[in-house]
């Protein structure tokens, strides 16, 4: 099973350039069509399950607006502890 992840977008920092939506290998990022941020852009958001926490969106983001998390498997976590 692929690892599970999620992203948090600092929405007000996003300028809607769409570099992350294009780079995402899982195609799970999109621009929020129904809302605007304080700058007047449609911010990027995670639209569905499938994020693996690979971090590629953050690597291309010019605003450093994305924080990426990845779940640690139960076994790995207990092994580490």
């Amino acid at each position, binding site marked *: 099973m692929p690892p599970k*992840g999620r992203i948090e977008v*600092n929405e*007000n*920092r996003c*300028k*809607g*350039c*769409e*570099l992350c939506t*294009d*780079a995402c290998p899982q195609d799970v990022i999109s621009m929020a069509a129904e809302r605007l941020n304080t*700058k007047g*852009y449609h911010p990027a958001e995670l639209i569905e399950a499938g994020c693996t*926490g*690979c*971090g*590629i969106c*953050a*690597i*291309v*983001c*010019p*605003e*450093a*607006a*994305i*924080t*990426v*998390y*990845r*779940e*640690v498997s*139960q076994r790995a*976590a207990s092994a*580490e*502890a």
Partner: protein
Amino acid sequence: MDTAQHELEQVVYQRPESLMEVDTHYCPGCTHGVAHRLVAEVLDEMQVRQRTIGVASVGCSVFAYNYFNTDFVQAPHGRAPAMATGIKRCLPDRIVFTYQGDGDMASIGMGEVVAAAARGENITVVFINNANYGMTGGQMAPTTLPGQKTTSSPNGRDVETQGFPMQAAELLATLEGTSYSVRRSLHDPKNVRMAKKALRTAFEVQARGMGFSIVELLSVCPTNWGMTPLQSLKWLEEAMIPFYPIGDYKVNPALAGLRF
């Protein structure tokens, strides 16, 4: 064990500490932001944020001093390597870098950067090549490609009358004082990763007192190119890279054994 906020979740990527918590003035999709972030990540990883002094230039990156969470000064157009020299000679144990665009470094400031490299000045230059003058509205730069239309070469750069573009990484690699001169690109995730590795190497060259280091970063300027951010990445890849090949133009052999 670092499990961040969630019990069973780790942070894969977060905003580097060496960036200020502020919005930049850069246009949407401008890769200045990516270059800033990569430099900041390298400063974080090397744990040198609190002994780094940056030198901002004139052009779109004139406000770099507002974006990096380090000490910063702001140089006259093209003179950043001279200013960095003055700082480094007075504070040789600090990390000193310049952040310059193509108009700044490869046109008005070519004298300063060549002289700094020839002296083997122990500074790092982050050089952004986006093939035009961004801040003044997209005029022809020394890096503008043959045939490329800009607001001051409206019919396309004619090499007969407007000369040929400047290949800075190759040029600076010819100098004895240069320890590290490479070109990278910011147009896709793989290349961004390579760019970061090059920046890390450049700063490590300085930290080891090995002399002048420069990383040329091919960058986009969607606004002045008249393209969407995604189109501009494609144009960079298809039009710029053939003229500005990604590569290592000079790597001091002493770097071979280093791991970081």
